[in-house]
């Protein structure tokens, strides 16, 4: 039977790997290729690279760094960051990545989801939905690395991108991200049980039981891990690791 995928999710910022808390407090983690090489040796299920500076840096991708990664890592690779045209997506696919993650451009140019999906298949398109509570406790979809509120409802937006051709949703709770306090289980459950495509749960994992819960209770198809795989423990030093787990 199929195992649930556990996906180390690495944040690239101006050529370095960083880790954030609630999309802020950037802490330096290490060199991207070295870190990815360690995950490759640990035989992780899949890796997601998110360049959180690309959109601000004029939607540019660090192709040299991504090429180094693709040439040495023989596992599923996805990339997100500043992809706003089909041509940019093609360059990433040609390097050997097989999934593109769209966030800002999915909102500003919905057609791009369909374009990529029609050519590369829906399994090649992940839409990242970043969710933050507003002043009144209502959960809304944010874009541009959590800087801009689209005022969209997460489930409605997930249903829409599914229809447009997305093959997976990377669902992140900005309020939980980097906190080690557990996922936003209800948010993930609401989305995962109401759409047909897989949901990757992201934001807040601090222990193995959090991962089990988001799979078993929230019905997530996969789990993205940030802090847990780059730090030794909460508030401790950098240690690239992959926890042993029996889910």
């Amino acid at each position, binding site marked *: 039977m*199929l195992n649930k995928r556990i996906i180390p999710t690495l944040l690239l910022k101006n050529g370095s790997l960083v880790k954030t808390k609630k999309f802020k407090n950037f802490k330096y983690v290490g060199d991207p290729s070295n870190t990815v090489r360690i995950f490759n040796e640990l035989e992780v299920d899949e890796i997601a690279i998110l360049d959180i500076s690309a959109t601000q840096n004029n939607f540019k991708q660090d192709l040299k760094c991504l090429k180094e990664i*693709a040439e040495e890592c023989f596992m599923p690779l996805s990339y997100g960051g500043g992809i706003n045209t089909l041509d940019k997506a093609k360059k990433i696919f040609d390097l050997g990545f097989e999934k593109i993650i769209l966030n800002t451009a999915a909102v500003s140019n919905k057609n791009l989801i369909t374009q990529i999906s029609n050519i590369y298949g829906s*399994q090649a398109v992940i839409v990242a939905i970043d969710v933050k509570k507003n002043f009144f406790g209502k959960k809304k979809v944010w874009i541009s690395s959590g800087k801009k509120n689209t005022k969209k409802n997460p489930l409605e937006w997930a249903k829409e991108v599914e229809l447009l051709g997305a*093959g997976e949703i990377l669902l992140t709770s900005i309020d939980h991200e980097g906190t080690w306090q557990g996922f936003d289980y209800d948010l993930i459950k609401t989305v995962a049980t109401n759409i047909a495509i897989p949901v990757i749960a992201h934001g807040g994992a601090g222990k193995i039981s959090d991962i089990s819960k988001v799979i078993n209770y929230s019905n997530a*198809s996969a789990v993205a891990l940030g802090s847990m795989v780059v730090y030794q423990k909460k508030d401790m030093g950098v240690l690239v690791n992959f926890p042993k787990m029996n889910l």
Partner: protein
Amino acid sequence: MIGILNYGMGNIGSIFNILRYVGCKSIIVEKSDDLKNIDKLILPGVGHFGEAMKKINEIPELVETLNFLAKDRKIPILGICLGMQLLTDFSEEGNVPGLSWIRGKTYKFPILQNLKIPHMGWNTIKQKIDIPLTSEIGYEDRYYFVHSYYVKVLDKASSMMTTNYGIDFDSGIINKEENIFGVQFHPEKSHKFGIKIFKNFIKI
């Protein structure tokens, strides 16, 4: 020299990368003429079956050349993912015929409770026959799958491996006499388990 057929659909880059990693020279082939100098062929593919056959049929003399390589020269051929499905007689994805090098058909996965389609992620295989391509494969070896359609071969002898995802399907298929192999998973994305398959393939 291994040729990687590029007919406009698929992860050519990752197959090129892994062949280089295992120390094998490969070329990306786009025209029938370029196929003349190769002694092994990889048929990749990601996407829609009907679309893929359309593109293959659009390249002048490609099908004839491929048939010549497969049936007359009998060079080892490895189909990956959609590339494996193309080896069969027919697919429900587009309702079109395939290359018919291995008897069998490609069907849409049935909708079963709790199982999302596509079948995406790591899964194991059961070996059905003992051949050099799959030598040294261990019981716990795992492979990365992404597909919404599955293959069922007509003749048991054409099944190289099976996998379960709600139903049992043929995750590896073979035409032993003609050196034609197909795997549904992505060996180029399956760590050392997939590297083993490429190492075995270049030795055939």
